């Protein structure tokens, strides 16, 4: 196992052409390691989400490449990139994007079902993940019956159910109060992070900076510096 989980080299992304060309990310290079929580921080419009999208196989960069476990991500075709996302990346979206018409356990099982696992088997594994996040008792409820913190944990369970190597959190604490936000990140650090896994968190919530191993600061689409986390447990 390589120590480096993700290696991004010279990533640039712009929108529009000619006079209207606007850079969202400009020549960004960095590495993320296994067993590491890397924060990507910066003000709104600094390119955090665009960068996250490029390293998770969602948005194709105009220039640069992303290497994940010896695989040149953007050399793959669309179907293989979709497979890469399904097998290697777990997403926790800012708005969770849970399905209100499915039960909580069915929501968690979605990545396994997309991997063509048998329905009952997928539900069984999803139940196990709900146990990990402490929501077994909520399995049969639709997500909209759960609190914000609980929904966040369901989203985490969905992200880890297929045991991905890379976990991506987009503003995980944006809609949570400070206490719940901290509990969630503590939980992630304690229960979700492991030596095979790398966690990238985009945030501008400085209340949770203490849980980072490293913090990468961005501004105007460029990396402006790396800091060590303040309180690695």
């Amino acid at each position, binding site marked *: 196992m390589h120590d480096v989980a993700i290696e991004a080299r010279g990533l640039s992304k712009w929108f529009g052409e000619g006079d209207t060309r606007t850079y969202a990310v400009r020549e960004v290079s960095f590495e993320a390691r296994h067993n590491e929580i890397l924060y990507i921080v910066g003000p709104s419009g600094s390119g955090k*989400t*665009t960068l*996250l*999208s490029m390293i998770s196989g*969602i*948005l194709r960069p105009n220039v640069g490449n992303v290497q994940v476990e010896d695989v040149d991500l953007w050399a793959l075709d*669309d*179907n293989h990139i*979709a*497979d*890469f*996302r*399904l*097998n290697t*990346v777990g*997403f926790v*979206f*800012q*708005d969770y*994007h849970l*399905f209100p*018409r*499915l039960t909580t356990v*069915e929501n968690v099982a*979605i*990545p396994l*079902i*997309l*991997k*063509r*696992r*048998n*329905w009952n088997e*997928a539900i069984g594994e999803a139940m196990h993940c709900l146990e990990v996040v402490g929501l077994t008792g909520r399995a049969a409820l639709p997500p909209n019956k759960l609190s914000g913190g609980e929904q966040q944990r369901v989203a985490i369970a969905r992200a880890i159910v297929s045991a991905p190597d890379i976990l991506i959190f*987009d503003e995980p604490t944006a809609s949570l109060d400070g206490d719940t936000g901290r509990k969630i990140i503590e939980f992630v650090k304690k229960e979700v992070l492991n030596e095979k896994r790398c966690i990238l968190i985009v945030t501008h919530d400085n209340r949770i900076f203490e849980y980072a191993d490293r913090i990468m600061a961005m501004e105007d689409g460029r990396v402006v510096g790396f800091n060590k986390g303040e309180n690695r447990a």
Partner: protein
Amino acid sequence: MRGILKIAYKLLVNDKGKFAALLIGITFAVFLMVNVTSMFAGMMMKASATVVNTGAKMWVMDRAVNTVASSIPMPDYVLNAVRSISGVKYAVPFYSGAGLARLGDGTYQGVTVLGLDDTSLYGRPALIQGHIEDIYAENGFIVVADEELPKLHNPKVGTEFEINDNRGVIVGVAKVPASGLFGVPTLYTTFSRAIQYIPSMRYTISYVLVEPASPAAIPHIKDEVERLGYRAVTETEFVARNTSFYMWRTGMGINILIMTIISFVVGLSISGQAFYTFTLENLDKFGALKAIGAKGRELVAMILLQAGVTALAGYGLGVGLCAFIIALAKVRLKDYASIVTMRNLGLAFGMVVVIAGISSVIAVRKVLRVEPFEIFRG
């Protein structure tokens, strides 16, 4: 893929409000389409009642005849000429005309008079009262017990009446598969009595009914009759000719077609709009699935399943509702001319498939274009 389709199914049916709106759209459209075309089919069945009730395999007629009700009398030699064609097992004359019956209370009622070949009574109806041989009795008529019977004051065996100033006696009551289109009671009698009682032209044979020796003989009989200057058609062809006339040369068909198209457009508008809204409201979910790793073809399969389930359920409900309404109407209105045929069902199904297809295409285009990046941006 089954698990993915199960998710699609749950997303659809668990959204009860939207699913109900979709179902109502399709159900309403199917109901309208099946109802309108069933009414037309019912009317056509009635328009061809004489053909259906007689049951002759082939009909010989003047070339200008378009409907069974508007026969053009043929000379007697046609009957003999048809009988001499090889492949004809037997051929008999048949009379179809209109008379005026004077009832017991002095009122008049128009009637259709059908004259059966005196020798064979070929094409006779099934009797529910009386005996068929009584048709040979003096002034004997058999009345058809259909929805029009009360117009003759519900005559029974032995009831007397006048027809075109001749005495008539009911000697039997018959049941037939279909009653006529024009709301007129039907009387059967012998061919000879019919042409005696009903004023007619020099020629008297309305149709020659033919029993071919075998189905293989039919083309030859047709050719030979054509050579005589007349037309021979099978029972099915005659019904189709009837239908074609009413459909294209009376304006009825165009009206029905317009109604069917309106139903289709209404169904397409309601269902298309509802399905599009349903897809739009779930667009972020489809985007999330795409971000997680769902492929385009899996999302397409999900949408097709949702459209298919909605279409099939709506189709079933629409057909069921239509059948229920027709059955209900027939309890109260015996004359209600509406019949659900396989062709109607097929047409409505085809149109529902088109509605579901168009709705799906719109939804699929939208879903395939959604960028997972947009989900990230929130």
